């Protein structure tokens, strides 16, 4: 059974890759053509082969794996913390409208501030270690997750809730069996947007102050005038983001098949 599931997963991945790779291939060809024709300097835009060589070199000396592992670890930690804070807080707010009324203006204020603007403060408060990076990721993905969950809960269809009332369901059961499942599509959107935000914020944080991670890899290569490594780093970041989103979609399909995992993110 598990084997069949894996087979299905890989087939699904291959199909996705085939369909999605056409545009990538076209972009790659255009890039190669631009480099080969000599229209752009090889320093400003190294050819795909040079970038590929740089990638191989990074893999061979182990630095790519090391930097990627550090970045992924930071994302996972910051994202998990954001989820653990945002979802219970959203639930608490929905249950206690008065608390929500008191805290909402403050949260609205905080929401307007881009996490990167807080980097100087975070460095002063948390140093330039892991805590600061995790803090930035947390700030970046907290609001999409929190607001989506809050909206999802408050917009649970009152007609479905009335079904619970009509068979005299106690409030806690209505919350657990109707409101929370009904809010799931909105929560899932928040979780996916949050994942994307956390990844972007991480690289930003690593560009500013770091000694490891993919952002550091890029800024270090820039200092050494190695545009090929810069591009290799950019490619890795993009690919990892894509994989994360595909895994998230696959998880939604498996855990909540009634949610249309493809349609819901078309506006992002």
């Amino acid at each position, binding site marked *: 059974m598990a084997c069949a599931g894996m087979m299905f997963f890989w087939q699904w991945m291959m199909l996705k890759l085939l369909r999605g790779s056409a545009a990538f291939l076209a972009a790659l060809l255009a890039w190669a053509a631009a480099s080969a024709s000599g229209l752009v300097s090889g320093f400003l835009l190294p050819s795909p082969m040079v970038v590929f060589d740089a990638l191989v070199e990074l893999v061979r000396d182990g630095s790519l794996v090391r930097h990627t592992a550090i970045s992924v670890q930071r994302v996972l930690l910051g994202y998990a913390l954001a989820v653990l804070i945002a979802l219970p807080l959203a639930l608490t707010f929905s249950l206690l409208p008065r608390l929500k009324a008191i805290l909402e203006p403050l949260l609205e204020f905080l929401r307007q501030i881009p996490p990167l603007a807080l980097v100087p403060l975070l460095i002063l408060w948390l140093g330039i270690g892991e805590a600061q990076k995790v803090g930035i990721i947390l700030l970046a993905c907290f609001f999409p997750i929190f607001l989506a969950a809050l909206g999802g809960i408050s917009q649970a269809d009152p*007609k479905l809730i*009335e*079904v619970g*009332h*009509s*068979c*005299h369901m106690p409030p806690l059961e209505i919350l657990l069996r*109707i409101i929370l*499942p009904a809010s799931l599509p909105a929560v899932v959107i928040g979780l996916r947007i949050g994942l994307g935000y956390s990844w972007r914020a991480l690289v930003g944080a690593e560009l500013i102050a770091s000694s490891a991670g993919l952002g550091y890899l890029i800024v270090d290569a820039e200092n050494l005038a190695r545009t090929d490594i810069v591009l290799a780093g950019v490619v890795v970041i993009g690919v990892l983001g894509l994989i994360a989103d595909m895994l998230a979609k696959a998880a939604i399909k498996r855990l909540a098949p*009634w949610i249309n995992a493809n349609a819901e993110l078309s506006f992002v």
Partner: protein
Amino acid sequence: MFEARALTKDYSVSGRKVSALSALDLSVPKGAFLTVVGRSGCGKTTLLRLLSGLTRPTSGCLEFDGSRTPRVGYVFQEPRLMPWLNVAQNAGFCIARRLPSVEVERRVEDALCLVGLSQFAEAMPNELSGGMAQRVAIARALVLEPELLLLDEPFGALDAFTRRNLQQQLVQIWQHRAPTIVFVTHDVEEAVVLGQTVAELDQGRLVATHDIPLPYPRDATDPSVNFHRRAVLDRLLKADHVRQSQTHIRRA
């Protein structure tokens, strides 16, 4: 089954008092099939909400036999199925976690069989047609083994064929399980085809009750059914006419 005495329900709509139901007197015996007919906004749904306990009367009283609240099954205008649950889980929604799972399973099986959906127990709501979804909603009410079954224009959004089918099914369920049924509709023909008694509501007031002593199953094209349809319709139109001329006089 129940007796309503001077039952009144007022709502406040943007600061103005609106009487949804005023001084309604109605007595319905156990096991009866009552249909309530009237134009939209005449207080039909309010009556059901009062009977189900979803809302409380402003004044007047509602007394049930043996002065205890009966088990109530409620079927809404729309199916209102939980999109994350399959047909069987939706049918058992109101009794799951309250009764032993063996009992839940038995009742769900029975109810789905009764509405003809045994083959679709595993289907998800988004795979169902409108008529099938509404039958799941009826099954969800039936698993409660209701003494009082309330239906609020349940077939209003269905095509004529599906509607006729479900009307016949409902009559069979009533004959088989013998709950007291209060069925609300704005369709006079539907009210006459289904009800033993038709209660005519106009602007929150009971205009008349009309007994229909015809055997089931009834055919809408039958002349005797048509006779009763005309009688009910005439009285409703008259009530409407009287009210309109009264407003004219008041304005003049």
